[in-house]
């Protein structure tokens, strides 16, 4: 029920942002993400930015997956 893409904020006007990712551009409403800045990445679903998405968190998430692998890999 949830197609959402991570896209970079390139411009903000009021509560709307222009976002783009790899040559695709769209607009996202920022009503539920008040402190987004130009340059931030956001997850966009049905025209609304639902969460921020940043590099460090992505790396931490990857680390979580690697930890799980370490724990469960065959001996």
């Amino acid at each position, binding site marked *: 029920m*949830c197609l959402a893409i991570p896209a970079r904020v390139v411009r903000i006007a009021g509560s709307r942002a222009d976002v783009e990712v790899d040559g695709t551009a769209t607009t996202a409403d920022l*009503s539920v993400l008040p402190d987004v800045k130009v340059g931030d990445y956001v997850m966009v679903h*049905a025209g609304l930015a639902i*969460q921020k998405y940043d590099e460090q968190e992505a790396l*931490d998430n*990857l680390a979580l997956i690697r930890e799980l692998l370490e724990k469960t890999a*065959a001996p």
Partner: protein
Amino acid sequence: MNTLTFRDTATAQRLIAAIKNRAGGLGPVRIMEVCGTHTMEIGRLGMRKLLPENVELVSGPGCPVCVTPAPYFDALAVLALEKNVRIAAFGDLFRVPGNRTSLAEAKAQGAAVDIVTSPLAAADIAEQYPGQETVFTAVGFETTAPSTAAAVREAVSKNRTNLSFFSAHRLVPPALEALLSDPELRINAFLLPGHVSAIIGEAAYGPLVKRKIPGVIAGFEPLDILAGVLSLLDMLAGKRPSVKNMYSRVVRTEGNVAARKLIDEIYEPCDAIWRGIGTLPASGLKLRPRYADFDAARKFGCAVDIDETPAGCSCGDVLKGLRRPDACPLFGTACTPGHPVGPCMVSSEGSCAAYFKYGW
């Protein structure tokens, strides 16, 4: 910023190997993927056959289009063909059959139907056609509800008089509760919807914790789904069930509080019919009375309060994970994507559609 890291093939192979390792000695395991987007991704990746024999991924009711009652689609056609209404709809809804017709059929008969990717676009259509009412199809779970809520709030602030919203939003936790309370269901663990969770947060899954059933909040890239399955197997093997968030880059523990506040400002919970399942208490959203002017159900008297299922259609069983798509007597014969009987076959994330498109 690279999503490709969550598609890394080498890590995917290691996860698959670890899954095989962890699943060994577990006996039959049934994992329900609640979210329709997960069902589609799993199909698209050909993941099912890569899992060990004893691990079964079962599709659940997380396809908001599939669980919207059939009369909703008939009501849309009536609005368009008899009440001079323009329908602004997500593409997902266009081909879904009601009991009598579909938006696609209505459009072929002259209905004004605009496909949009956001509820906020409905306002543009209303502005373009001032002589007509535009009705937006507010379908979706908690991921989508904040977007329609934002659109309602904007319509209010701009004093629009020719725009309204026909709500059929549904909520995930009540559906989970219904599944968990069903004695027929044998689900050992749940793969939980990543983007719904981004809105509702981890605490919403308390009922799983209470019943000591493992759950993992998972994203939608290949590594996310594989790691989700692995984490569930690990919890089952270690007999240490809990609800884990493996989609931490997008899901915060508390979810998105502002989004929930916005939903609450515009909507209130109501009992709602889930197509194929029945009425679940407090499982839907309807517009609060002060937004009556923007509530299509009130404006046009088209609220949906009954549902009927066509003979032979097993969508209900499929949605509850009780039956595989190919076990439905109509699958592939009377019911195909070209001429669907039930929503599971035509919805963009219906289990039957996924099976038909991608094989199992």
